[in-house]
């Protein structure tokens, strides 16, 4: 094949042209790279514009070009643009290479000569690479219209309802016995002070009764295999020991069960529940679960009260976990958050001083359906506090624990201040660093709480202690804080202290991420495809995220993300098919010796060993194109498209053919013996 390469250097206005000598670059390419196949080199103001793209398209047609190199911005921006323009010209789009001389050159260097020299090198690298490019076709995959939503909190429910209402099947998998998530634990929601249960439960019921929704509560995902459009998910439906088909949710078993244990999940350890239980009254589904480790029947073979009193004969102690295999096209992860464990800050006394509460514990106190029927009382269950302190930023904005801001705690703390004022005649003091109230109605809510007469101390709380030092402190919790606005240290006695603990990724978030092929940041939040422009997609095609799994956010944001993820999924389902980049690895069986070194290289299990043939094999559908196996093969028997050895080695050659000064670098040769002629007489 004779290369006929077209080179296009973009000015990008002055973004590139202001630093890199673009005209010189094009001239240099036409002249110096002529022997590498460049037949035309142009420079143009904005290559991504229509006339810019037409230069490419027309040149392919008129000049018979068979390779294109564009030197412009990042491939992440316009690789598709130029590939599409190439395709319009009748050339395979994968024969077009976009090299960045903007983000990688003109925007980061000030020395114009050096930047132009580097641009020459980058261009030469691109030209050499494109000479080794092969035409490819995108891979089309069918999209299974069923969707898996993992996590039945408000984000997951939102997503589920959008997809189900659009007429498509959703599997909603939730690890707790009921959907609802953390929102079900709240009393009121800011800033409207809507009752959380009142606005949540209609959605829960809608999800639970929707004909297109298969609710799998008390269930966990065990394995995910496959790729976008064609995932195979293994779900373990844990045994409830209650037959779902027979149970009518009457609740008699719960009433009659004589055993109670501390409810550490829903009641946040503030209350107790029965051993056979639904987590809360409005649970969806209303089918209870037997807490096997605490059930006397399972421990000693006694009791069986629930079985005796169940009219529907729904109790089944022999029930076993079920393993289900679901086939879905897309997955939405909405697994939410865990609360920061305030015990990690020992100087705040949580867990040691009884009247220090976490935010979730306080929510349960406030809740009319909670352990104190909505009465705000101390740990003894009866005394109303006269003074309440609310500490912001517990475990957040703190380089000792989590550096980030948890987004919702200021509003939550203001909400608590309001509720305390509303339900008690206690004095409330908020201890804050900043007031973060950005949402709609949030600042107004703050104004309202200010006017209701709470105290506000700007300062990070140093310590909460019961060691009284001054008169009036006996029997109280003393908050030691620097009041930065007053400019002095203060010791403020309180009856009750509420810690607005921050939000953290779920325990097991990293394992979950590995399971689904998600990327997680170092602290465990799921990483979105683009933090500004693509907050619900992930780098893995077909896997989306919504809600707090990607970072702290409030309910409106979680709902919006759930709906956004659903919209993306619905778009895929509508199209029925998707194109994947054909960056794949292949084992060349004739060269494969069956050493099996590649077999452990693939986290997507795309590589298998064919015993009968004695060679390894790569399932192209599952291959994600990382190229690790290509590099690992000791026989060089695995090749990878899009980033082949030939392409990369050629690119290295091209990048190094230009010195730091823009000229061909001086290279020395290996020393050789002088005069390799030999005395004839000696040898004859």
């Amino acid at each position, binding site marked *: 094949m004779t290369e006929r390469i077209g080179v296009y250097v973009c000015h990008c206005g002055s973004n590139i042209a202001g630093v890199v000598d673009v005209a010189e670059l094009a001239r240099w390419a036409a002249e110096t790279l002529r022997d590498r196949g460049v037949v035309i080199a142009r420079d143009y103001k904005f290559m991504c514009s229509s006339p810019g793209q037409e230069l490419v398209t027309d040149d392919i047609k008129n000049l018979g070009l068979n390779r294109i190199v564009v030197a412009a911005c990042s491939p992440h921006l316009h690789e598709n643009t130029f590939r599409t323009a190439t395709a319009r010209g009748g050339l395979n789009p994968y024969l077009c290479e976009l090299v960045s001389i903007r983000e990688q050159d003109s925007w980061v260097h000030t020395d114009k000569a050096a930047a132009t020299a580097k641009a020459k090198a980058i261009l030469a690298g691109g030209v050499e690479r494109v000479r080794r490019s092969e035409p490819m076709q995108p891979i089309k995959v069918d999209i299974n219209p069923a969707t898996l939503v993992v996590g039945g909190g408000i984000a997951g429910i939102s997503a589920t309802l959008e997809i189900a209402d659009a007429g498509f099947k959703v599997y909603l998998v939730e690890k707790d016995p009921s959907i609802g998530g953390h929102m079900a634990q709240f009393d009121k929601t800011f800033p409207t002070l809507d009752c959380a249960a009142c606005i949540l439960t209609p959605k829960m019921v809608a999800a639970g009764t929707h004909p297109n929704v298969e609710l799998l509560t008390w269930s966990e995902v065990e394995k995910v295999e496959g790729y976008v459009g064609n995932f195979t998910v293994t779900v373990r439906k844990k045994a409830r020991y209650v037959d779902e088909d027979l149970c009518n949710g009457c609740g008699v078993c719960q009433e009659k069960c004589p055993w109670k244990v501390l409810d550490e999940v829903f009641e946040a350890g503030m209350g107790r529940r029965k051993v056979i239980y639904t987590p809360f009254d409005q649970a969806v589904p209303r089918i209870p679960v037997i807490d096997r480790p605490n059930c006397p029947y399972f421990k000693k073979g006694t009791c069986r009260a629930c079985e005796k009193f169940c009219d529907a004969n729904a109790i089944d102690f022999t029930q076993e976990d079920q393993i289900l295999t679901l086939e879905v096209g897309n997955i939405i992860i909405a697994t939410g958050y865990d609360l920061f464990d305030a015990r990690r800050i020992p100087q705040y006394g949580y867990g040691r001083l009884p009247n220090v509460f976490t935010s979730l514990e306080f929510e349960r106190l406030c809740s009319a359906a909670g352990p104190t029927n909505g009465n705000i009382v101390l740990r003894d269950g009866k005394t109303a506090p006269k003074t309440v302190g609310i500490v912001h930023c517990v475990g957040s904005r703190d380089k000792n624990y989590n550096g980030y801001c948890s987004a919702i705690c200021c509003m939550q703390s203001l909400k608590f201040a309001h509720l305390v004022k509303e339900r008690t005649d206690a004095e409330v003091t908020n201890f804050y660093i900043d007031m973060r109230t950005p949402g709609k109605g949030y600042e107004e809510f703050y104004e309202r709480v200010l006017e209701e007469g709470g105290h506000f101390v700007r300062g990070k709380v140093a310590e909460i202690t019961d060691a009284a030092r001054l008169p009036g402190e006996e029997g109280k919790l003393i908050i030691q804080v620097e009041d930065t606005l007053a400019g002095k240290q203060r010791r403020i006695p309180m009856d009750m202290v509420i810690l607005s603990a921050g939000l953290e990724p779920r325990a097991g978030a990293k394992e979950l991420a590995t399971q689904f092929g998600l990327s997680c940041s170092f602290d465990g939040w799921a990483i979105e495809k683009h933090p500004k422009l693509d907050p619900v997609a992930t780098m893995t095609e077909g896997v989306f995220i919504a809600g707090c799994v990607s970072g702290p956010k409030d309910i409106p944001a979680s709902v919006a993300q759930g709906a956004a993820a659903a919209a993306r999924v619905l778009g895929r389902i509508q199209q029925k098919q998707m194109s994947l980049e054909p960056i794949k690895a292949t084992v060349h069986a004739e060269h494969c010796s069956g050493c099996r070194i590649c077999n452990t290289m693939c986290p997507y299990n795309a590589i298998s060993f064919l015993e009968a043939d004695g060679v390894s094999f790569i399932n192209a559908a599952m291959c994600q194109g990382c190229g690790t196996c290509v590099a690992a093969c000791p026989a060089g028997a695995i090749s990878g498209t899009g980033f082949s050895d030939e392409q990369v080695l050629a690119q290295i050659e091209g990048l190094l053919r230009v010195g730091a000064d823009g000229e061909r670098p001086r290279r020395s040769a290996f020393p050789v*013996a002088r005069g390799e002629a030999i005395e004839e007489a000696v040898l004859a």
Partner: protein
Amino acid sequence: MSPTAGSNGTATAAAKPSAKPKLAIFGAASCGGCDVAIINIHEHIVDVAGAFDIVLWPTVMDGKYSDIEAMADGEITVTLVSGSMRTSETVHLARLLRRKSQIMVSFGSCASEGCIPGLANLTSRKQIIDTAFSTSSTDNPENLRPVWECEVPEGVLHLPEFEPVLRTLDQVVDVDYTIPGCPPESNQIWAALEAVVKALNGTGPLPPKGSVLGAGDSTVCDECARKRDVKKIDQFVRIQQVAGFDPEICLLEQGLPCNGPATRNGCGALCPAVSAPCIGCYGAAEGVVDYGARLMSAYASVVQAIKPEEIDKVLDGIPDPVGQFYRFSLAGSLLHSSRSAWQDDGE
């Protein structure tokens, strides 16, 4: 029937019409093992002598360089060159033979990739000469050194000069075919020669230029009888560290660094069969640019450790990486030599 391989472009010789095509076998800086391997084809040597007019084979018969110089370009049909390009003499002969031959074959590991002598590229020429001429076991009280050129009453004498950096045959001349191995297995030698004879007779195809003859398309594992599983390496051991190795299981899986996965097959996997790890004498697999890089990548990929300190501990089990990965292939590798060979030449 003359083949079209050979890059010299000049016309086939018309000086002395010969019934049989001419064959030259030359050992450059060679241990002689390749010549022995050729003779080891036993009675087939008669077939070779019958098919060719052997014009040069210094190990076996008398012959003069001047005979070769007198030939026309392209007069020799096939030349097998073993041994490496160690001295100016070997380089000169390689170029001379290239001009006089239609087909040039890089025969054996030295010619193809430098082989063991290539490891001399780990030190400078001066250090090599010093070690050879003044080591504690050498009796050289006046510290004499070879001089490449010296004037004597009769004129100027030249010694073949020791090249500062050892080169492979294809770094000096254009090579048509390669027969790998240290030495190439005799059965493979015969197979390759037979194929060439057939091609010359027109009864068989001439392999495409650049082909590797006398070897397989895969690597040693393909011929190794040991049972292979997925590789998960926790440590590398040296052969003397372990009492005995399981004869059935892959040696690499037992922690013994075996180069089989990266080494071209054709030898019959003789070494692993007796629990000796493959050391790589048959060279790289098809299309591989740098043999050592393949091994480095493969070994590092299957080490299980992920923490830097733990990785270091495992890699400490290969105390001599250059010896392990480039024992035969250093001169033919991407870097060709260590830095001191070319940088410290004058010292």
